[in-house]
């Protein structure tokens, strides 16, 4: 077609512009984190690593403290996601649509309302102290939909008869799960672990409501944003977070889609 031919030359250009717009603002953070100036203005004159030094001194503790919470939430949501995905894919369930809708609710509700209702749930209804573990529960809540979607997509792709064959060959349900289902679902499970970790890692609103006096990394950063003196150190911290995020997400996305040849 004529039209096709005319557009083809422009495709890389337009893609390039979009990628620039999507990434440009975010990439300013690492760029200015090396800037030896408290103001973020062009042109950049001197480069420095001192903001990274300042950051490492103070923030290592917070990161370590919360890492375990996020790992716990990622594992919990992956287990929830796996069990429900298996149920959805294997069995014909009455009211499947409603079940799926219920699990997807955390994706749709504004996080400020989730935060307020969980706060009321923990403080007023259960009357428990806000600890790291109440935050872990909240993280699990918002990551479970992602886990379910990722693992379900993976499980839908493979042939049920493999599990049936294993059962016919005398494997117990547990052996079938461990030696057939789990290995087949593995890319999905790994992607789900990474994505849920990432979701908790970046989460701000719920942690803001629920973390009481122990700030998570995003809450801590948000608190510092008002003070211009701290901005460069936050840029350094943010750049580290970006690098970790992009590495984790690229891996997860590669696991999730990259092996799916039908998309190519």
């Amino acid at each position, binding site marked *: 077609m004529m039209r096709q031919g005319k557009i083809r030359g422009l495709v890389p250009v337009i893609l390039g512009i979009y990628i620039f717009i999507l990434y440009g603002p975010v990439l*300013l953070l690492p760029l200015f984190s090396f800037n030896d100036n408290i103001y*973020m203005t062009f042109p950049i004159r001197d480069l420095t690593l001192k903001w990274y030094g300042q950051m490492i001194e103070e923030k290592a503790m917070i990161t370590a403290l919360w890492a375990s919470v996020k790992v716990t939430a990622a594992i919990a949501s992956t287990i929830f996601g796996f069990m429900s995905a298996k149920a959805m894919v294997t069995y014909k369930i009455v009211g499947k649509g409603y079940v799926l809708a219920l699990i997807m609710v955390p994706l749709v509700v504004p996080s400020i309302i989730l935060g307020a209702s969980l706060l009321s749930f923990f403080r007023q209804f259960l009357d428990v102290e806000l600890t790291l573990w109440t935050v872990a529960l909240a993280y699990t809540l918002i990551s479970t939909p992602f886990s379910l979607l990722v693992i379900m997509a993976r499980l839908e792709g493979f042939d049920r008869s493999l599990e*049936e064959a294993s*059962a016919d060959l005398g494997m117990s349900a547990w052996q079938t799960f461990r030696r057939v289902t789990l290995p087949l679902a593995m890319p999905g499970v790994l992607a789900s672990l990474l994505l849920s970790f990432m979701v908790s890692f970046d989460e701000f609103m719920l942690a803001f409501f629920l973390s009481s006096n122990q700030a998570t990394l995003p809450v801590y950063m948000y608190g510092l944003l008002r003070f211009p003196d701290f901005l460069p150190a936050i840029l350094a911290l943010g750049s580290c977070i970006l690098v970790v995020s992009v590495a984790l997400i690229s891996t997860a996305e590669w696991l999730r889609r990259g092996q799916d040849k039908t998309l190519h």
Partner: protein
Amino acid sequence: MASAGELINRGAETRARPSGRSRLWRWWYTSESLRGYALLAPTLMFMVFMLLVALTSLVAQSFMTNAGANAEFTLDNYAAIFAPNGDIFRILLLRSLWMSVLITVCVVLFCYPIAYLLAFHVKRHKVFWLIVITIPFWTSYLLRVFSWKVILQQEGVLNSVMLWLGVIDAPLNTLLHNRSAVIVTLTHAWAAFAILPIYVSLEKIDRSWLEASIDLGDSFWRRFLRVTLPLSMPGVLGATLLLFIRNVGDFVTPALVGGVSGTMLGNIIVSLFTDMANEPLVAAVSIFMMLSLTAVACLFVLLIGGRKRLRGVT
């Protein structure tokens, strides 16, 4: 006709059945739903507690006085919202809804062309491009907002670049702390999120319909308006609804780049929580926001549904 595999499988199940065939066992073996729900039970219980019970607790708290364990029933929280001097809540709600509409429209307008390009004109390395476009969505939302603060602030990137190019003589202090800053920031923050559903619904369109439209003499734009756009509507509407709902409750962006004129309802909820520690009023305002949101969303769905039904009739 059952396939050979199913027959064999059925045989296996019969063999596995315990000899004492109690009713419960038979039900267990014959009801797929039951086994499905057994596997779903932990997740569902968790969801019911963390969502439904939590929401009920929020509703209950919104009718209480702010006295912790000694709280009593009261309607004061709602009275505060609807009282004549409580118009700040109503103004901010309307502003939040309106800004969310604007942001959603901007996101869709920004995302549609790239989704279209990816679906129809990118032939190789589609997966690669999709991954590249989705990655920013997963990076820290706080950082994405923060980067716009860096760009727009008075001692920021945009001002310094314009000064350097000689477009302006002195830094502008009007870029940040207003509504447009909030709209630009949120449009950018959600772009990666909307591209995917739109792309998926475009990708699903049967190519032969597009060819048929051209063969029958439609121009590019006519084909787009009459075939491509309507068929991609599921993705567009899905993204629209989700973006609209999520943006109304936003608080980080207005707090960081919004200034006074960009303040939204989320900001007042947060300040009631942090500065006044008035959790019952937080609950009431949240419920108020959620009900208004649900109403608007339902209206939107009804309008869309109504239009579809009309088209079906004619």
